[in-house]
């Protein structure tokens, strides 16, 4: 597009230019419809709060265009096409689901955009031999990291040698469960049962009975979401043979709703996830704002990743943006370079450093334990 009065764009893949009083525009592509809505709405809230906190960039307000990734490949593709048809969008926060991330990553990359995902965890997305594309970043943890962390914690800290893993057929949960199982076995443990339920299932007793019959294991890891996780937790306590078994889940179940869903049965269970730095002042302000703005506490854990993702983009825009009177110019490659160079960035999910394929999450996965309705960090 035409540039400001005196600016010449030299960026290899083009620039975005904001004229006087034009807002800097971000897009989000999160799941805000269908059964996974919680996940996306939570992230979107995080994005909105980050934008509110930031206020403006060089006098330009910040505006969000919220799209729905539908938690599906076709949804991701459509959202992507819509976003890249708008040249005033400088960066994308999304997607929620890895399945939507795969096509969207391709679409936005080809068009020269940058995108930071708060909750894609599939290893494929940052695997250059698979679905990685330039311009793709994420603040969510690669399953490889989180699954391994849980295996380490279980084997080394809790000292368990037998475990079971349960997923629900969602790519995220399946990926985590599998990485956990592989690592746990690599450490010398035994996976007595690797099994699955379906999203939407309510009666978990049969599958839990099968797990009990196979071992019973000392620990069950089920990195699923709140609904299925709630059922598994409560019913595990009612299945003979599993009364003493340690229960563990992942960040899909770090949320107030999950605390309520597991109820008393969840007391003492473990969760792998980011270190939300609950002592962290910024996060406390965040939570206050959230309560005020949306009337509820956050719905899951990804608002934090989304908050960080938004901030990563915004601070890079601020950094590489060329202020030219009332105009602001942002080079798209420059933005990618800046994001690539993210290192030691202090976010609420930890200290972010991006590797060459866009994995930016703090490698420090923590394990927390649910005690008296609160998540207490117990490891490391």
């Amino acid at each position, binding site marked *: *597009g*035409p540039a400001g009065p005196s600016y010449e764009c030299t960026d290899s893949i083009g620039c975005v230019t904001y004229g006087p009083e034009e*807002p800097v525009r971000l897009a989000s592509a999160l799941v*805000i*419809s*269908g059964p996974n*809505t919680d996940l996306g*709405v939570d992230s979107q809230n995080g994005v909105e709060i980050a934008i509110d906190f930031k206020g403006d960039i060089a006098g330009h307000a910040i*505006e969000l*265009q*919220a*799209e*729905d990734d539908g*938690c*599906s*490949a*076709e949804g991701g*593709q*459509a*959202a992507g*096409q*819509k976003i*890249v*048809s*708008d*040249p005033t969008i400088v960066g994308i926060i999304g997607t929620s689901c890895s*399945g939507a991330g*795969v*096509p969207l990553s*391709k679409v936005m990359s*080809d068009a020269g955009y940058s995108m930071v995902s708060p909750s894609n965890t*599939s290893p*494929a997305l940052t695997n250059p031999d*698979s*679905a990685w594309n330039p311009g793709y970043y994420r603040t969510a943890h690669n399953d490889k990291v989180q699954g391994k962390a849980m295996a380490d914690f279980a084997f080394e800290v809790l000292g368990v040698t037998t475990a079971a893993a349960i*997923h629900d*057929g*969602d*790519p995220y*949960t*399946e*990926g985590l469960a599998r990485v956990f199982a592989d690592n746990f076995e690599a450490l010398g443990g035994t996976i007595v049962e*690797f099994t*699955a339920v*379906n999203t939407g299932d309510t009666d978990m007793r049969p599958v839990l009975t099968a797990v009990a019959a196979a071992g019973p294991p000392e620990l069950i890891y089920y990195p699923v979401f709140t609904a299925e996780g709630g059922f598994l937790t409560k019913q595990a306590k009612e299945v003979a043979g599993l009364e003493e078994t340690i229960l563990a889940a992942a960040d899909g179940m770090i949320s107030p709703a999950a605390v309520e869903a597991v109820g008393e049965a969840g007391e003492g269970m473990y969760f792998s996830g980011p270190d939300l730095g609950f002592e962290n002042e910024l996060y406390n302000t965040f939570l206050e704002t959230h309560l005020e703005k*949306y*009337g*509820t506490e956050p719905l899951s854990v990804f608002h934090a990743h989304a908050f960080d993702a938004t901030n990563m983009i915004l601070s890079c825009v601020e950094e590489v943006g060329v202020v030219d009177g009332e105009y602001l110019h942002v080079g798209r490659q420059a933005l990618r370079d800046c994001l690539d160079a993210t290192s030691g960035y202090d976010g609420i999910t930890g200290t972010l450093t991006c590797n060459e394929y866009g994995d930016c999450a703090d490698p420090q996965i923590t394990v927390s334990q649910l005690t008296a309705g609160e998540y207490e960090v117990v490891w490391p």
Partner: protein
Amino acid sequence: MKKTFTTKEIINKGLLAGAVVLSLSVIGFIALLAERELIKGWFSLGHIFLVASPFAFAYVTTRDMEYEGNAKPLQTGFIIGAVASIPLIVLSFLAVAIDIRQFLSNVSPALIELLTFGQTPVLGSILLLLLFGIIGVFAASFNIIPENIRHPLVNALVWTLGIATFSEILLSRVRSLLGRGLVKVIFSGKSLNPIFAIVFFAAVFGFTIWWDKRGDSFKEKLENLAPAKRKQLSQGQSILLMLVILFLPLILGSYLTEVANNVGIYILMGLGLNIVVGFAGLLDLGYVAFFAIGAYVMGVLTSEGALGLDAGFSFWTALPISVIVATLFGIVLGIPVLGMRGDYLAIVTLGFGEIIRVVAVSDLFKDTLGGAQGILQIPKPEFFGIELVQPGELYYVVLAGVLLAVFIATRLRDSRLGRQWMALREDEDVAEAMGMNLVSTKLMAFATGAAFSGLSGAIFASKLTSIFPHSFNLLISINVLSLIIVGGVGSIPGVFVGALVLVGLPELLREFAEYRLLIYGVLLIVMMLVKPEGLLPDQRKKRELKSEAELDWAEK
């Protein structure tokens, strides 16, 4: 028929209108839309939906009302509007008094602020009551003002609000087609520029008045045209239509072309299901199964990732195989259900759809189908060495598929087989007694339907370059079924209209986010209530008197 309404009935209507807008408010719809300004600084989409219900109720009531003089309807309109505000007023007072939000999380301060215009509850309530009353009067006045003003007014309103609502899409088209300069004139941010809005409103208003006056003579001229000329004209129209279809991507731009492609994928499926349900009357709720099979075959054959067969299949060589495999599955799954009728068939096919999805997601076939992680790195189609990447390029692949399917579906419909299917739909026993083999007739329907769906799935996989089992859920089957019924069961043009309305429109309504499916639901209900026979119902071909009519035509 005109009715008289008692005061109680009028108040009830008002309360009903109020209940509707109250519902819209408490589910957060209004507040969400309030963020979307239509005309900069004036009002938002939220305001429109806020007043839509009292407007509609006041309009319809006064339309159906028996009255003399103009005072009565205006008064009625006011009452309905004013009464409709009462539930909202109660809500805003309640919100101040207690913490409703612990129950209804969407009763946000932003909503209350919207409802009270940022004023104190008392003042705000009075304002709201007045606003609604005026809206009621406004609605009622539509029934009073003469037609030659009403029509332009309605037109101007609808068009202005329409372009304001879809400004986001327009904006991107205007930007790339007309340049940045004009954008500033028309838009202010994402909303319409007030001055432009006024000018546009006036223009539409003026044009409609002109058209209403002159249009009739124009139409008359058209009708009086010599048959030969008329034929030319209709040929001209067809050529124009063809050109538009051919160059659609240029007109639409990449995003809308993507939408068109998605619509096309559904049209393909719709054409197939239309054969099964529309022609043959076999209610199939698991149609997605064949779509999935087509997609998975394409994925497994061509993927460049770990799961790919790596046997040198390209899109074009894999395509027929996908279609054939899907067709075979159509037959195989068709056999056990041959003896089942009506809703038994529906639920069993639904089961097949679920079985295919569950099997795809399961750990059982993880090594071949990728399980939950799906199949990645499926190449896009190539055409003489050019990879078709952009929506505008893929469009032609979809278009080719759709044209082929329309062609085959039309030819089959007009053949003996088509009549067999319809006879089967009307009365299975008698159809059999006419000498037709039910088994082969039914299996042909399943097979053809599955073939179209498989084709659609194969294109889908290649277009997305990745497939996940979750894409193949029941909602797709439901959506395809809905679109053929909304379009008009058994009608081929109906499939197009249905797909545009049920796939295209929701795509454009992305902004409504979590309310999209809610709107989709309302859309389904309203369309069926208004046009139960579908938007473009099937027209049986004239055969007895056709020849004569044609003769007629030629003679003239």
